[in-house]
Each structure stands twice: as structure tokens, then as C-alpha cells.
């Protein structure tokens, strides 16, 4: 299990490749999700974004989210990497991956981790649009 808050750009596929080969988790099923910054939201073009977080609490909440899925879905392993700081359109914001013996568990866990992250991990997005900066007030439904 690995949780990381990243202040700089990352390539999700390179991270998955490195994590999986290092840890030798090659058996069974892996479901993953990559969320990237879109250049439009709620009708406005978004030029950039800043992601704030709560150091300490964010990691703790993510750990609890993974733990809950580990027991609920018999996970072999899970990985979360989440960007913070300044982000440009097209850049990866979040990577979630879940490994299990069977596809049902891997899919269920990956999706639940992602929904719980959206619902309870302390991250906050501020968008830079042509009209100025604005805090995003709520997430889109999952």
C-alpha cells in the first residue's frame, strides 16, 4: 500500500509500472483510475488550478479509505497518488489503483476508493479563469 501527495507533475503509467514491478504484484486483477485536469468547468474555460490540502489529515483519511476497501474487497494492494499545488490543463490530478485476485473486487475497490476520496479526503480546488480565481464549491456526482 502506498499513498503519496505529489507537488510536481507525474505520469500515472510510469508510476504504475514502477510500483508494480518493484512490489512484484503481478498476479490477478488491477483496476485503476486516472483523473486529469479539464480545461473547462461550469461553463468557463479554466486556465490553471491550485490544489490545497491538509498535510497530515489528508494522508490519514486516504489511509483509512484504503483500509476500509482492503477488508471489504480482499485487496492485495492499493496505490494513491494525488497532486497538490499549481496544475495545468491536461496534467494528472489523481491516480488510484487496486489489486486483487479477481476483477470484481479490484473494480469495486478502485471505484469506492475514488468516490470516498472525492467525498472525504481534504483537498480543495481553486480555478483560474478569465474572470479571475474561484474556489470549486462542490464535486461532480460520481
Amino acid at each position: 500500500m502506498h499513498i503519496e501527495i505529489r507537488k510536481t507533475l507525474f505520469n500515472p503509467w510510469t508510476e504504475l509500472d514502477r510500483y508494480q514491478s518493484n512490489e512484484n504484484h503481478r498476479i490477478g486483477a488491477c483496476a485503476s483510475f486516472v483523473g486529469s485536469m479539464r480545461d473547462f468547468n461550469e461553463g468557463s474555460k479554466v486556465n490553471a488550478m491550485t490544489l490545497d490540502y491538509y498535510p497530515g489529515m489528508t494522508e490519514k483519511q486516504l489511509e483509512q479509505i484504503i483500509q476500509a476497501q482492503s477488508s471489504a474487497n480482499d485487496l492485495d494492494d492499493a496505490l494513491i497518488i494525488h497532486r497538490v499545488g499549481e496544475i495545468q490543463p491536461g496534467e494528472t490530478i489523481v491516480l488510484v489503483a487496486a489489486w486483487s485476485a479477481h476483477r470484481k473486487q479490484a473494480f469495486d475497490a478502485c471505484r469506492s476508493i475514488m468516490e470516498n476520496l472525492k467525498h472525504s479526503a481534504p483537498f480543495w480546488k481553486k480555478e483560474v479563469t478569465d474572470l479571475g480565481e474561484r474556489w470549486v464549491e462542490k464535486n461532480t456526482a460520481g
Partner: protein
Amino acid sequence: MNVTVKFFASLKEQFSEPVMDVELSSDQTTVEDIWKKVSGSEQMPENVLSAINLEYAQAQQIVKAGDEVAFFPPVTGG
């Protein structure tokens, strides 16, 4: 008998300092009491979330000396 109070995101911009030391007036002080104190006695809005020592807390939860109390808007990560 102090607690550390932190603000995040839009609340960090609304308050003069992102981190404050706040004195507890009694051993029955709640999260909402602290909010009223730092914000000038307003009621705690529904869309202000709070945490005690890195775990989500309810407005009526009692705060102890040494606790870290945080206030922030709904989360929007992922």
C-alpha cells in the same frame, strides 16, 4: 488550556491568519464555540466542516487542551 486552530482553502483567505492559538474558556468548549470565538460570534455555517486531531468532528464535539482544530469548506479533490 490552548488549542491550535487551522483554516484551509477559502476559509484560510477569510481569516487573518491560517493558524491561530485559541484559549479554551471552559472544559466544555465545543468546536462550534471555537468557531464563534474566532469568527466573531457567528453561528457555524452548515458548509463549514471541522476536524479535531486530523479526524472529522461534529460542531458539538468537546475540544481538549492541546487539540488541533481545523475548519474548512466541503472538499473538492480527485
